[in-house]
């Protein structure tokens, strides 16, 4: 499968265009991991800032439909998870911030899920599909525009008690306002998670 996709689309570094990988070692080295400034309630780390090669790579992942890139970017995130584990953090499971289904249909794959799967594999943690996105399905004709937008913005729903007692690593591709991560973290806690740490490929905070 990898060989076939190489024929169709030769791998080139998203940063420097060097052939062979989606993000070459030099461009990976240029990423500077940083803590995610999400507030006191939620600690987290990003593998780098949303700029340069990392930004190109995430765009390729989101809009280019490139699966293999998820594994390379997942490895960057896994390094941040491993760093925390090495410093004594205890994590029991990886939980992904789910994509809207409409976008999943349009793209055919969920890049955050691919990322999280790569992180889980690298760190030897189970990947738990604990959260989904929902919206209200009552007729909305009577709602004004602002309310409709709010209703469509979507909330997270999870299986009650499905994360009971677990220390969770929440994974997403990029965070801009932190609002989605905070919502997803709150939802994970509502599902019983004992603690939540957030990890992203890039931070645009």
């Amino acid at each position, binding site marked *: 499968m990898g060989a076939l996709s190489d024929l169709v689309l030769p791998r080139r570094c998203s940063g420097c265009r060097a052939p062979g990988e989606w993000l070459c070692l030099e461009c990976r080295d240029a990423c500077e991991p940083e803590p995610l400034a999400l507030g006191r309630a939620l600690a987290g780390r990003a593998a780098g800032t949303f700029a340069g090669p990392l930004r190109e790579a995430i765009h390729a992942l989101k809009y280019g439909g490139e699966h293999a890139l998820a594994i390379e970017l997942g490895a960057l995130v896994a390094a941040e998870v491993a760093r925390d584990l090495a410093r004594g953090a205890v994590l029991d499971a990886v939980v992904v911030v789910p994509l809207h289904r409409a976008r999943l249909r349009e793209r055919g794959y969920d890049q955050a899920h691919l990322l999280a799967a790569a992180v889980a594999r690298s760190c030897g943690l189970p990947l738990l599909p604990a959260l989904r996105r929902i919206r209200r399905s009552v007729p909305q004709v009577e709602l004004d525009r602002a309310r409709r937008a709010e209703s469509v913005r979507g909330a997270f729903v*999870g*299986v*009650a008690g499905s994360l009971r007692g677990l220390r969770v690593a929440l994974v997403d591709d990029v965070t801009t306002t932190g609002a989605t991560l905070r919502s997803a973290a709150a939802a994970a806690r509502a599902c019983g998670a004992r603690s939540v740490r957030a990890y992203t490929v890039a931070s645009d905070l």
Partner: protein
Amino acid sequence: MWFMRFPIDAVWVDRSRRVVKVRERLRPWLLAASARGADEVIELPAGTIARTGTQAGDELQYEPV
């Protein structure tokens, strides 16, 4: 940067999506995680429960997005 508290509302529903418990303006790190008979728990922006008047016994309709 001063930290925004970011409270949330949480609604627990049973299998038929009937509300079994609501909790308003929970601070996320202090969430009470259980509700007897609950099948799913929904995280909502703070104020949603008050604005919509959602209470135990209500039946919710929602769909995946």
